């Protein structure tokens, strides 16, 4: 889009004032008449079975209104896809309550009472008799020949062997153990590599290593971490006229309705979700949280609205965790720095519930990012008795890039190649390929990649050469180092719907089904429609955050897909409205529709012009497709229902995104960091940071910069201090408070961090824009890792976070002193 007035410009989003003044209402800010409060009883042990529960004392307490047990939950429902395909419910999946807890902190039952004090006292009055069962919290322990299993059936997800020609059976839990021989290398701190679950490769790996001038073999552990969303998973539920009204945060206003309906076995039309504001998601609440059914069921039982406020401790459990990944890399480099061969092995930890695919998916991103000439990726995901694993910004990509980036940096140092140049040499360009070949022998590829441009821009802004010149110099006890890192992640989906109405008041009414989790894409994407139709932003009204407001089928705001997917949908809906407006004008004023143009709130052509308001009036008079009484056949039924409700109010633009796309959309970030380390204490701080994105056209610069730097900080946290800690003997978490798990504060990062973007449109999408939420994460994490090794040398760390104790001990002993294999320390 050229010569834009809205796209690419900053503006004040409709929710901003409410957010900064505290007027914005999140789920737990609502109150309903006669409302009760719910509290949860959590499992004190990591694995067990409830033998008996005595609730008599609690039930006798004044003010206690209802107690909900796991046995009262509806059985998990199957999922029916848009294509009519039925996906059978996994009987071993996470549920809202359980009588067989598989992690300490899992909810066993819930109490609704007149206030939280009463509910808490009631919980304390309940006696639960648990039968303790074997447990394990470390994935490597679970893989040992004699290691305990996290569930009776085993320690991994798998499918039963199927006869040739028959489809594989449903997922089940199986036992997979490695041999003592597999673990032999672990004594030397090298990751054992037994039988994997997933393996793919391309190219001639052996030849790559044979021809390499340098071969490195490195083990590295990326710690897990909680999402630490500001707004915990609180939910308020009540029933009116047979409909469930649910107030809850989510990453998708529209797609969460289906989740809630499935969990509670309701018809989707009987669910109204109010979710104007969501205090952070980061992938952990893509379509809501299964625990929101607890207040819904308690509300039914007690015949009163029920608010379940989730505490920080509970959030640490049900909010889920980004999986830690153990990694081992063998990499072969040519003398000129080209990556010839890459052999990646990753072990992903998981809860005892649904598998999070981080370990298995990481290899694809690495193959795109460094374009190794030959590559093999092997991975296994192991179940443990720890809280649910959920997607967290750049899932899989972050861990794999953190495992590989330090190896790239080490190779550059050993080969005497500048770190920026090293990444330029191996950078993806244009429709760069990734991953293994498909059944037809074809490898997938990106829609576009301008990583070299991002590196060049960042190098200049950051002042790489000048900073590099002073790195490694010691002043007193302080030494500085600089690091650069590249990163990538998927950045766009297709096929969603746009829905808007131009009404006789001349205003543009846009329906936004995007979740409002802080990225502003809930509004940003609709700037495209306003731009195309030529309506000033002041005359655009956006409905969002309430599914009774007739919203269109919309992507989940996960995987950085929204900006790409929903600018396309907005483009499609605006194009539909423009075409209809031209037809209306041509019919009214004479001539062919193609002779008319839409601009300046008018539709003008050879026969004169009409205002948009007049066009809207005529659309209502004409009916049919013009005012939404006839709808396109390819739109989602969710959109169709909403469009039917809005029909007859003006000129309707409604369409599905059917634009072609050649390739898969990925975005890229280059990050640059300078650190200063005190070698007498190991303490270090980030002196400066710059990140440059390659994600196509920028729709909203201020929001974009917020994403680039905000998500970089999330990445930095992985290197600086953030982690979870478990006592493996008891299987219990020790990092339940933020001062213990240590997310970074704003004072941990430089005040003047800079961001920029190459801002080159993606050729495979009409607006040119892709998402940016995720690739900054690994850039932030790895730029610091690499800056540390630049300052101190290669033999400092073997796991992240790299806290001062590991630096000080490595400097004292002249070799890395970290244990790279033990989880949760």
């Amino acid at each position: 889009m050229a010569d834009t007035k809205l796209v690419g410009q900053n503006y004040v989003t409709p929710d901003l004032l409410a957010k900064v003044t505290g007027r914005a209402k999140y789920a737990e800010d609502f109150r309903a008449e006669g409302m009760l409060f719910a509290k949860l009883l959590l499992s004190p042990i990591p694995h067990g079975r409830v033998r008996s529960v005595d609730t008599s004392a609690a039930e006798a307490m004044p003010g206690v209104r209802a107690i909900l047990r796991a046995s009262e939950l509806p059985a998990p429902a199957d999922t029916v896809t848009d294509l009519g395909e039925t996906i059978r419910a996994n009987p071993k999946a996470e549920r809202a309550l359980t009588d067989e807890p598989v992690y300490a902190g899992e909810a066993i039952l819930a109490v609704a009472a007149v206030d939280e004090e009463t509910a808490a006292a009631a919980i304390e009055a309940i006696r639960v008799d648990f039968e303790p069962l074997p447990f394990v919290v470390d994935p490597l322990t679970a893989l040992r020949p004699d290691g305990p299993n996290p569930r009776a059936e085993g320690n991994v997800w798998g499918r039963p062997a199927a006869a040739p020609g028959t489809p594989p059976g449903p997922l089940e839990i199986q036992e997979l153990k490695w041999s003592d021989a597999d673990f032999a290398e672990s004594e030397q701190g090298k990751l054992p590599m037994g039988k994997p679950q997933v393996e793919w490769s391309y190219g001639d790996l052996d030849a790559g290593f044979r021809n390499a001038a340098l071969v490195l073999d490195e083990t590295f552990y990326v710690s897990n971490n909680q999402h630490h969303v500001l707004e915990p998973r609180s939910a308020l539920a009540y029933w009116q006229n047979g409909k469930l009204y649910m107030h809850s945060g989510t990453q998708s206003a529209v797609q969460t309705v289906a989740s809630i309906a499935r969990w509670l076995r309701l018809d989707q039309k009987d669910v109204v979700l109010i979710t104007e504001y969501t205090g952070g998601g980061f992938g952990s609440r893509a379509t809501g949280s299964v625990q929101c059914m607890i207040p819904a069921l308690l509300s039914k039982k007690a015949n009163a609205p029920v608010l379940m406020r989730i505490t920080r401790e509970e959030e640490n459990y049900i909010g889920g965790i980004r999986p830690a990944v153990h990694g081992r890399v063998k990499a072969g480099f040519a003398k000129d720095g080209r990556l010839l061969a890459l052999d990646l092995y990753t072990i992903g930890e998981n809860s005892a519930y649904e598998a999070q695919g981080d370990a298995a998916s990481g290899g694809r991103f690495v193959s795109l990012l460094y374009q190794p000439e030959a590559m093999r990726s092997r991975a296994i995901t192991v179940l443990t008795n720890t809280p649910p694993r959920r997607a967290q910004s750049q899932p899989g990509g972050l861990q794999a890039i953190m495992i590989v980036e330090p190896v790239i940096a080490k190779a550059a140092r050993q080969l005497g190649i500048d770190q920026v140049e090293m990444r330029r040499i191996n950078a993806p360009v244009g429709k760069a390929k990734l991953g293994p070949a498909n059944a037809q022998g074809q490898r997938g590829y990106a829609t576009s990649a301008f990583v070299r441009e991002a590196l060049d821009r960042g190098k200049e802004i950051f002042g790489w050469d000048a900073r590099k010149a002073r790195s490694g110099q010691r002043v007193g006890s302080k030494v500085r180092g600089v690091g650069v890192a590249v990163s990538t992640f998927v950045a766009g989906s297709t096929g969603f719907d746009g829905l808007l109405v131009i009404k006789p008041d001349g205003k543009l009414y846009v329906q936004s089904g995007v979740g409002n989790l802080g990225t502003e894409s809930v509004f940003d994407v609709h700037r495209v429609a306003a731009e195309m139709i030529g309506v000033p932003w002041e005359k655009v009204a956006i409905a969002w955050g309430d599914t009774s407001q007739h919203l269109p089928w919309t992507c989940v705001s996960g995987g950085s897909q929204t900006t790409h997917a929903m600018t396309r949908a907005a483009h499609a809906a605006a194009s539909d409205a423009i075409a209809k407006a031209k037809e209306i004008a041509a019919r009214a004023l004479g001539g062919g529709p193609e002779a008319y143009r839409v601009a300046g709130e008018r539709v003008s052509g050879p026969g004169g012009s009409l205002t948009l308001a007049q066009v809207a009036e005529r659309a209502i008079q004409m009916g049919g497709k013009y005012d939404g009484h006839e709808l396109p056949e390819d739109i989602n039924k969710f959109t169709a229902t909403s469009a039917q409700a809005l029909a007859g109010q003006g000129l309707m633009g409604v369409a599905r995104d059917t634009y072609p796309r050649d390739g898969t959309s990925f975005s890229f970030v280059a990050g640059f960091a300078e650190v200063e380390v005190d070698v007498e204490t190991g303490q270090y701080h980030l002196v400066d940071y710059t990140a440059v994105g390659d994600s196509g056209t920028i729709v909203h610069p201020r929001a974009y910069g917020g994403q680039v730097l905000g998500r970089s900080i999330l990445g930095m946290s992985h290197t600086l201090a953030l982690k979870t800690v478990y006592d493996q003997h008891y299987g219990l978490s020790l990092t339940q408070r933020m001062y213990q798990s240590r997310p970074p504060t704003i004072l941990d990062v430089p005040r003047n961090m800079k961001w920029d973007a190459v801002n080159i449109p993606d050729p495979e999408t009409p607006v040119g824009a892709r998402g940016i939420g995720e690739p900054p994460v690994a850039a932030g994490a790895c730029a610091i890792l690499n800056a540390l090794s630049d300052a101190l040398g290669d033999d400092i760390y073997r796991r992240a976070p790299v806290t001062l104790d590991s630096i000080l001990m490595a400097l004292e002993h002249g070799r890395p002193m970290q244990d790279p294999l033990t989880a949760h320390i």
Partner: protein
Amino acid sequence: MAIVHDVIPPFQLFQPASVDEALDLLDARGQEAWVLAGGMDSFDWLKDRTKRTSVVVELGQVAELQGIRENAGGLEIGAMTTLTDVAEHAGIRERFSLLAEAAGLVASPQIRNQGTLGGNVSQDARCWYYRRGWHCYRAGGNICYADTPTAVNREHAILGADRCVAVNPSDTAPALIALDAQMVIRRKGAERVVQATDYFRGPDIDITRMTVLEPGELLTAIRIPATWAGARFYFEKVRDRQVWDFPLVNVASALKADGGRIADARIAVGAVAARPLRLQAVERAIAGRPMNDETAAMAGEMAIQGAVPLRHNAYKVPLLRNLVRRAVRGGPPGATT
């Protein structure tokens, strides 16, 4: 009984308007009374329902417990004075900058606005097993969960452990010890004054308490004598984050020089033992020696004598050594937040 956290159980709240009223209440309610200053430690316990009380005596209304006054050439700081006020007080910054610096490095700006000096020196241990409500020695049980083969004890003690390996997490305590501060303790009808270094208790004396305060007693003020005014001070706190973190190790020193030699010294360290430690042997050894790198190195080596690291905290040994070395050698001031 099932465990539930994050809901403060009901209690009777008293908000006395004077120290005498407060002491009357503590006298009448004795063991059951919980003294609440800024709440930064108390609310954690009460919210988690791990420690309970039926009576809370909240001191926020007692004007005489607040403020900083001249006292016999030194200063007297009311126990309820906020850490922010201590850090920003002109007289403290001018004469006892050691304390201002230590107070300014506690936790975060928000916590310093709420937390008090009296609370900071009287706070409980932050061992994450103990804080989670595990029934350990310090909680009256018969095991230390932080000192087992699988325990994660990166933040625990390397010195003076006796069954319990928790550390005292106060930042101001080492500074007060280095300044020869005195703690004014009152109970109904009586007052006693103890040296700061004697205010803190190790597990060998009392494994369930961090200080000498007895039920019925109240820390009302902290006196800083003129002794060390304007001396050469050094304070450093090492922590994982730039803000909102307890010390992994901290050090405070006050040195008086006499023509290039150390005339007299105070050195105290925190977060290495269950109480802040005054390093008297080091002080004696460096007295009279030249103020140079050699003396500093000797002080560092002496400081770690007898250190016994646990599985995950061996780094505290070189860290303590290097910090004490710096405290003697002097150096650029640490960052503040």
